[in-house]
């Protein structure tokens, strides 16, 4: 979706859309309501108070500890394409003046996969929340663990979950937002143990990726299988929230769930990770 073009096509219904209208509508198709994926930076701009975001953990770089086939090339390609160094952007921000510790995933960076760096950034985001008494908000978008880092990626599931347990222990609310797609190792770790789980409409949400499931012999599935609507129906989500209501929903939850933090815990404007 090139911003310079006046028109574009909806990825779902294929109708032609005006770019300006599309952007004003937060990249949601006005005809079919399809929520197109957002780059992490744009998501931050749309969700948090203007100019409040302070990016942290910018010095973390993935390496290739397993010498895995084609990993270097794939990662370099993703860096060039996205202008970022990994699939997670993390830092602090405000939402209607309330400070929050945030992490936002970018699916365009190697499918948002979680390797050592992404796991470290999520962990630091949750640790900063626990340490400074700020609610944590994490936007998920990932195909799962990054297989190119092998067991190290698997262990990020445990590491991030441990950090979420810290938030729970000190009484800091943690909100996860499932955007398209939230899958596998990410869904089966920090994403699913948030206090509040919200999803965008129609987001793909599931444990086994299509190819892995096929490999395991899973064939007949319901039409809405692995959608936000499917997992909502089965009680795994608090709400499905359209993009235009996301900011206000998060803000209200931060206000209520984080309401007692002000008196019980010290807040700092800019946490130092």
């Amino acid at each position: 979706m090139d911003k310079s073009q006046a028109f574009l096509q909806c990825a779902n219904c294929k109708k032609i859309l005006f770019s300006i209208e599309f952007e004003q509508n937060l990249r949601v198709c006005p005809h079919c309501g399809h929520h197109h994926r957002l780059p992490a930076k744009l998501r931050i701009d749309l969700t948090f108070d203007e100019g409040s975001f302070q990016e942290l953990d910018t010095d973390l770089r993935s390496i290739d500890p397993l010498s895995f086939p084609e990993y270097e090339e794939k990662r370099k390609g993703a860096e060039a394409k996205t202008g970022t160094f990994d699939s997670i952007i993390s830092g602090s921000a405000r939402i209607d003046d309330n400070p929050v510790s945030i992490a936002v995933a970018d699916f365009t960076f190697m499918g948002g996969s979680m390797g050592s760096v992404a796991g470290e950034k999520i962990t630091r985001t949750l640790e900063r929340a626990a340490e400074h008494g700020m609610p944590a908000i994490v936007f998920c978008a990932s195909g799962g663990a990054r297989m190119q880092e092998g067991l190290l990626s698997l262990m990020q599931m445990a590491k991030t979950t441990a950090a979420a347990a810290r938030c729970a222990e000190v009484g800091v609310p943690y909100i996860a937002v499932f955007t398209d797609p939230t899958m596998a190792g990410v869904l089966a770790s920090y994403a699913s143990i948030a206090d509040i789980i919200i999803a965008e409409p129609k987001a793909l949400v599931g444990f086994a990726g299509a190819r892995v499931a096929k490999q395991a012999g899973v064939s007949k599935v319901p039409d809405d299988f692995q959608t936000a609507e499917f997992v909502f129906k089965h009680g795994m989500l608090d709400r499905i929230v359209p993009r235009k209501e996301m900011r206000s929903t998060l803000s209200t939850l931060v206000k209520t769930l984080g309401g007692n933090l002000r008196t019980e815990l010290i807040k700092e404007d800019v946490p130092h990770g």
Partner: protein
Amino acid sequence: MAKNFDEWNRPLKELEDGIDKLKDFAKKETNPAKKTDLESKIDELEKRRDNYIEVMFQRLGPWEKVLVARAPKRPYTLDYISAIFTDFVELQGDRRGFTDNAIIGGPAMLDGKPVMVVGHQKGRNIQERQFRNFGMAKPEGYRKAIRLFDMAERFRMPVISFVDTPAADPGVESESRGISEAIAAGMFKMFELTVPTVAIVIGEGGSGGAIGIAASNRVLMLEHSVYSVIPPEGCAAILWRMPERGADAATALKLTAEHALQLGIIDEIVKEPKGGAHRDPLEASQIVKSAITRHLAELTPLAPGEIKNERYEKFRKMGIFEVA
């Protein structure tokens, strides 16, 4: 490349079948000269067998480790439980409407001290395999484990986890009941525990299905077990769209115990009897038992808060990256 353990093991199996046959003959043989002759032949073949095992197991490649880890006669969790513990009582049910047979568990005694045991269980014949769902637990398996973890905390019992699963169950039922949440909640609960926890990978450590009961203070691996973020066949399907290239994927994934130790993921490699745990399950059990008791002895003197913090710090360090 052999596709499964039996194919890989065929030369050894044929050699051993030959030895058994000769032994049969020798037993029935009444002519002393012929008997001696047969016995010396048996001797020779047994030497060849030992030598073959020695050579085969000296340098098992990653794919061979996968095959051995999946060996049908490899001891499973219940085999270890019966050899290591006394007074084991299996407990069932997630108290949410479901029961699972791929994760089992319950309280037991280890050298006279109470512990809580949890583990994946595979089956040996077709009926058993189906009953155990091939060792692939559904959400109710993890939720049962969480119940047991809770009890362990309440009654101050160390938790021992035996890990042996190809993966968590990926089917429609499991998705409907929140398999991802169940795995995440399993890890979450393990991080809350203030009792010592020790996990040992005895066969296949299959990704999320494994870590859901293995976020422990100490994580051990049997010498020929494997631990991986994705099954090698699944990895090959994604990388090359060729699941049959599992052997190449196994190499790329670095899923052996040696690699896990090098990467700082596990604390110890537990040696197996010559030729693998399946050749001497009782000896394997004794080795596993002494490793578990040694680690528990180190953890038990720690204060509850220290036990929990030690576990946090252990996993907190995991990951390899650069700081620019």
